[in-house]
């Protein structure tokens, strides 16, 4: 049984990992709180649902969703975040909460709170390996999570834009002085974050074959935030490992302790984690200068 719980934990963890990568492009790298990340990609996923129900082929529909996630996040950054970027920590966070509410209620007004079945064609089969069941879809998701992590890390290290992004995360004024097109780069980061978010969201829906408005905040932003903190803000590798650990913790607690207090215990573990190691497992070492 332990092995099956392990598999379940890994598969939920890898779904969280996909969402965390999108979230961490912005939160981890630019250290800008991205409260609306989940709701933005949830809207992108519902766009896919709309396209699929309108009879468009799933692959094209998903592409449409990813592009809409990319554009949506750029627009959000352009109008809601850009001019408050330098006004402390509270103001941008509140603006992000505002955006989250706009997106969530747009979905609620159009599609309502109902759960819709999501037929995307690729369901994958169930492999029975001596009593343990592993879905092929679970393996695809795990591979997708790892490969995206590698691709993004290479993108950051090797490409020009990637270097610009890292420069910006160190210090925006200095990066600007060195000729990094700050606003354009930041909007690209938000765009990639949005696109990755939709991909993560779609695979989440495919994994559960349903879509509902809750995949945005409750199962998206919060889980990604928790994973980023467990893994260490600022490092993509840490965030992915944090996400997988989160998945394992959840399935072990649910399996062996109690489903009644599952969420409370997971939160308790996270809070003690924050209080003991506020910088997480793979923190980036910067001594504070005054």
């Amino acid at each position: 049984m332990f092995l099956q719980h392990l598999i379940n934990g890994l598969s939920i963890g890898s779904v969280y990992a996909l969402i965390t990568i999108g979230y961490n492009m912005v939160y981890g790298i630019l250290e800008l709180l991205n409260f609306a990340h989940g709701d933005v990609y949830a809207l992108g996923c519902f766009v896919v649902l709309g396209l699929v129900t309108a009879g468009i082929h799933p692959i094209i529909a998903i592409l449409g969703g990813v592009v809409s996630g990319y554009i949506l996040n750029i627009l959000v950054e352009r109008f809601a975040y850009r001019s408050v970027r330098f006004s402390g920590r509270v103001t941008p966070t509140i603006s992000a909460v505002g955006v989250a509410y706009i997106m969530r209620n747009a979905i609620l007004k159009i599609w309502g709170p109902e759960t819709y079945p999501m037929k995307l064609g690729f369901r994958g089969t169930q492999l029975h390996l001596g009593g343990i069941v592993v879905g092929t879809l679970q393996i695809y998701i795990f591979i997708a999570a790892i490969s995206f992590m590698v691709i993004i890390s290479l993108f950051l290290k090797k490409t020009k834009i990637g270097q610009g992004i890292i420069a910006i995360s160190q210090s925006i004024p200095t990066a600007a002085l060195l000729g990094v097109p700050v606003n354009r780069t930041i909007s690209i980061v938000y765009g990639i974050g949005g696109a990755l978010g939709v991909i993560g969201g779609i695979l989440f829906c495919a994994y559960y074959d349903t879509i509902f408005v809750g995949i945005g905040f409750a199962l998206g932003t919060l889980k990604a935030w928790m994973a980023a903190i467990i893994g260490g803000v600022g490092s993509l590798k840490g965030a992915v490992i944090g996400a997988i650990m989160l998945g394992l913790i959840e399935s072990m607690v649910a399996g062996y302790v109690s489903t009644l207090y599952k969420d409370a215990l997971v939160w308790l573990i996270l809070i003690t984690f924050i209080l003991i190691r506020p910088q997480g497992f793979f923190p980036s070492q910067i001594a504070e200068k005054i």
Partner: protein
Amino acid sequence: MKKIIFAICISILLAGASACYAADTVKFLVVGPMTGDSAGQGFQMKTGTQIAVDEINASGGIGGKKVEFEVADDVGTPNQATIIAQKYSLDKDLLFVLGHNNSSCSIAALPIWQKAGLPVISPSNTSASITRLGYGNYFRVITNDDIMSKQLCEFAIKKLGMKKPALIWENSDYGKGMRDVSAAAIPELGVEVVAEDSFISGVDRDYSAIITKYKGLGVDGVLFLGDYTGGGLFAKQAKNLGLNVQLAGSSSCSHPKLIEIGGDATENFYVVAPFDPFDTRPRQAKFIDNFLNAAKERPGEWGADAYDIVYLVKLAYERGGTDRESLIKALHEIELFEGVTGNFKFDEFGDVDKDSLMLVVKDQKFTRYEE
């Protein structure tokens, strides 16, 4: 400066007194969760009521008077329910209240409704304790948890032959009520409940941990005491993880969406329900067709019970229940009412003892289980 703005706000308040005129119509209120997690159930209540009101107005109204209703949204939270109750208990023209959907909302609002003497008839409050709180103006047309859970447990153990059943219950007033009764009823049938788990509807979507645990314990049957979304998801995930068990669900699973979400994993899924969405009997079939083209989805128990309540009040009104007080008396005096959800009458607590139907999913449709 800041103080002036505050004063202005208060003065706007004074101007807002709502004016309403008394016409010779029969007016009532439908209150339920029109937004929030259980908005689907509120929508069903509203649509069922609308169909009944349209039919009655077309055939001359109640006692020659036109029928109208207002809709209020309590978002399924008790605080909001009390605000709605305070607001509408002042409307002198209301004859009765069709609602609340959640038991916790009814409990919160009943003291206010009672002070105004308004009869409250709920289509879906199933928690057993409400009718024992001593509110003489409260009725419900759905069998409470005790009766329905006992029927479900007896059927699951005796007819379906579950030897090692497990209980999964939605952590809400609805789910908790069903769980308490079932946990007591099953041991009396000579079978032990092997495991018990709960989930928060609208949040928890992943049952893989529970399913894995049940495989380890050799569970052969699961009683799912929750709504159709959870039921569908659980059935699908159980099939994926190779847990083939006999599934039996409570009345909230009797919504066509259970099949839509669960797909072929819901084959042979038994559900106790006051109403069969695929019923072929003439009266029910006509109602289902009206509902289908009104709302593009089949009615669940919420729509059917709301429909019955409107006709029930029509019958009581025409027997002298023309104001709030006499309506309560007339409702108690009805010996037998034939509705789409079955034939019933009220006992002195406002409960009904309808015999529920047992439905089973066969090739993606609910069918009636014949003895």
